[in-house]
């Protein structure tokens, strides 16, 4: 009987329950997706760019759990608002409180369990999909990632069952304190929006100052180091909360006080609704802004790490390829690549020294990266003088052995990058000495294109040939190829893992936050129904009311978005001392954020509209 009553009650409000269930399923799916990464320690440590990756995931788990907790509380309030009147009527009719409490408990657990089963299934599907998408996009395979991961499933089940249990108990307690009449008349409550001017201005100033301090700490993170990490985290968060409790309401107020705007159509109603909403949602909006920043930041961070690969290799190696005595096959490939700079240097090797021909170096002065010698990095022509050796070959060898062979530092650095083996000491000798060396003459080709990334296929082909050569030359297991491309490749694999994790982290936060906002808005919709009905009665066209809903919710969604994106834009500075270009493709994360956020916005509007503007005749 108990279950049947609960079930019938749920059926009567099917649409609302579908909304509720969808929200829960999303939350569970996201939580599960996140856990597939967080708990898979083998995977995260294999692909981690920074050794604190596991820490980030632990912190992320705690944060996500906290957000989820509040989310469940919101959905629970929503649930209670759906049912309280009915429960009130049951009680009026003489149902015992205990009975109602049990009914509620059964209902909560029932919804929870249904949501859990669907949620985990969706989570498995989603994580498999995302993993495949990312792997396809980045053209790598992420070994070790499992979308169907038992520990994550256990944790998800445990966590949510616990949450549902807690909220059920919470409802139990709440219901104990509440009187019958409160339940029956739960709808009729007035909202007050009182604002104290003076206190407000102080809060605004405090908010702006703390935000400024937070931003400054983010920008000068490199100088401030540990202090910066703390001050930026604390001050930015504090500033965000203060701004949302003071500045944003003031903006809305200003909008309202602009007579021309306020008195246009039902704009006064829109602004009033907005005002009320901004007040009641200020803490949530601030949290949303912060988590948007974290989410978008995680995605941008991952992408910037990935991009860092190209820049890193560009800075360590000026030339895109270095080939010793190119074979016909290699020549073939090289010929097809449009190098903007290419040189070929002759040298001889005798097992102890590599003798480079001075005249070749003189005629084709190479490019070097100044980072090797100075702090700043730029590519420049090597201008240093070449050693002016007049000694015979024997003298040169002797000098080199006792360390008195003199060569400009930049030259030795450059020659090191040319050498195939690091055991030989590079020397520069002039033509006449060079001719005395009995070893076979070899050449080394270096080439630079205008865009390293445009010819990855060719670099890969060259590396493959090289690898084959090395395998045949040495019987035992040879070392891997150490080309620029190989270096890029090994960096990239790890970075892709980071992107993947950043993406999960980011999407999880963004989606959770947006659904939190959605439910908070929707759980208040019941109170708005009568307002919209009245407006319709006094002759406001439905289209106008719809537009009002769109506008109001747009602004509600917009405020945290602006602040959150600003946080990200400034916050990425933080990475400037580990990543060369922290702002690389920041638009990707911002676009992704906007996409997710816009979807939630439209969904919220749609559901809100269905609640306050039902589709009946008139």
């Amino acid at each position, binding site marked *: 009987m108990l279950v049947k009553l609960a079930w019938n009650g749920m059926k009567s409000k099917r649409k609302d329950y579908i909304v509720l269930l969808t929200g829960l399923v999303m939350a569970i799916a996201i939580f599960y997706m996140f856990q597939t990464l967080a708990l898979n320690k083998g995977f995260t440590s294999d692909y981690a760019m920074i050794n604190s990756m596991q820490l980030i995931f632990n912190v992320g788990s705690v944060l996500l759990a906290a957000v989820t907790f509040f989310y469940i509380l919101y959905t629970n309030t929503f649930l209670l608002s759906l049912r309280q009147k009915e429960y009130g009527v049951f009680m009026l009719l003489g149902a015992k409180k205990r009975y109602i409490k049990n009914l509620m408990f059964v209902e909560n657990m029932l919804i929870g369990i249904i949501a859990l089963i669907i949620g985990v299934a969706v989570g498995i599907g989603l994580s498999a999909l995302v993993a495949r998408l990312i792997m396809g996009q980045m053209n790598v395979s992420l070994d070790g990632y499992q979308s169907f991961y038992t520990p994550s499933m256990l944790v998800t089940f445990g966590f949510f069952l616990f949450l549902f249990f807690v909220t059920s108990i919470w409802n139990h307690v709440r219901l104990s304190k509440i009187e019958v009449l409160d339940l029956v008349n739960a709808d009729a409550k007035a*909202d007050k929006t009182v604002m104290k001017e003076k206190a407000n201005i102080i809060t605004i100033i405090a908010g702006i100052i703390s935000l400024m301090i937070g931003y400054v700490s983010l920008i000068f993170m490199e100088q401030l180091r540990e202090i910066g990490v703390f001050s930026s985290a604390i001050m930015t968060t504090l500033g965000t909360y203060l701004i949302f409790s003071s500045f944003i309401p003031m903006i809305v107020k200003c909008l309202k006080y602009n007579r021309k705007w306020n008195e246009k159509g*039902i704009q006064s109603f829109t602004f*009033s609704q907005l*005002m009320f909403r901004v007040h009641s949602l200020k803490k949530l909006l601030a949290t949303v802004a912060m988590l948007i920043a974290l989410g978008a930041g995680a995605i941008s961070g991952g992408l910037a790490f990935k991009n860092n690969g190209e820049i890193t290799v560009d800075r360590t190696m000026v030339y895109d390829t270095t080939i010793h005595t190119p074979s016909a096959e290699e020549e073939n490939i090289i010929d097809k690549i449009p190098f903007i700079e290419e040189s070929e240097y002759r040298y001889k090797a005798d097992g102890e020294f590599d003798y480079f021909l001075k005249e070749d170096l003189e005629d084709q002065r190479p490019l070097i990266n100044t980072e090797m010698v100075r702090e700043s990095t730029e590519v420049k022509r090597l201008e240093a003088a070449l050693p002016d050796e007049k000694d015979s070959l024997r003298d040169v060898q002797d000098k080199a052995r006792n360390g008195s062979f003199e060569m400009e530092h930049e030259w030795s650095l450059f020659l090191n990058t040319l050498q195939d083996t690091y055991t030989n000491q590079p020397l520069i000798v002039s033509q006449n000495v060079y001719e005395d060396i009995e070893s076979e003459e070899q050449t080394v080709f270096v080439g630079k294109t205008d865009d390293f990334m445009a010819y990855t296929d060719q670099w890969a082909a060259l590396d493959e040939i090289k690898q084959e050569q090395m395998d045949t030359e040495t019987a035992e297991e040879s070392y891997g190829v150490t080309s620029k491309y190989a270096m890029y490749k090994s960096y990239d694999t790890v970075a892709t893992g980071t992107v993947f994790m950043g993406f999960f982290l980011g999407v999880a936060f963004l989606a959770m936050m947006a659904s939190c906002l959605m439910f908070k808005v929707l759980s208040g919709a019941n109170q708005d129904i009568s307002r919209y009905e009245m407006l319709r009665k006094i*002759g406001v066209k439905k289209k106008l009311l719809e537009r009002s809903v769109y506008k109001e919710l747009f602004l509600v969604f917009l405020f945290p978005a602006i602040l959150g994106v600003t946080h990200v834009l400034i916050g990425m500075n933080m990475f400037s001392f580990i990543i060369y270009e922290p702002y690389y493709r920041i638009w990707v994360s911002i676009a992704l954020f906007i996409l997710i956020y816009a979807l939630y916005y439209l969904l919220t509007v749609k559901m809100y509209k269905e609640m306050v503007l039902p589709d009946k005749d008139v």
Partner: protein
Amino acid sequence: MTYSVVDVRNVDKVYGKKNENKYRALQDISFSIHEGEFIGIMGASGSGKTTLLNVISTLDKVTQGDIEIAGTNITAMNQDALAEFRAQKLGFIFQDFNLLESMTVYENIALPLFLQNITGKKGKERVENVADILDIKDILDKYPAIISGGQKQRTAAARALVHDPNIILADEPTGALDSNNAASLLETLKQLNEDHNVSIMMVTHDALSASYCQRILFLEDGDLYKEIQRTGTREEFFKEILDELAEAGKKKL
């Protein structure tokens, strides 16, 4: 003879779809409201008062018949046109005030004006004008949450009046008021009707409220079975109404 603001001709309202249990809420109803008339609709719960009010206020469609308001036949209009029509020609007073708590009294009253793009000085003048008539000029800047029930209903009345509608439709306007506030509101409505020639149609089941009207239509089971016209004092009219209600009650015994 003054011309009629509302003309209801042979109106039927049937609830329930085809092949379902049908319920005839209004049965062949015809009557007119003249300009400047204060008319009351009385009847027990379920007699069809609210349905009648809803079809006249264009919130519900009639199944058959015609309704003409201020010379416009509303039965054939589409939703948007009806909304516009309501906004311009009708004023509403609801039982539970239906004020918007997040807006000041001023904004609540001015809302119908904003809808018609009457803003700025012109709008302010008109709001202050009706506020003056309804004696709520001092609370214009306040929010509904902190004013009394009587003031709330006066605010609602001001909102119904501000855009100069052809007729004010009041649905149990005193239902949520104590007797003092109720009397004061009814006095105000009467005054509006007499001094400003505002046409009012009020739905009520309370004889005392009804006694403020000039003419009362009695409704039962969707049928307009009687109408009485006030000829003498309000006290006499009140008795007449009570008698009529008692008469109707007796028939059912």
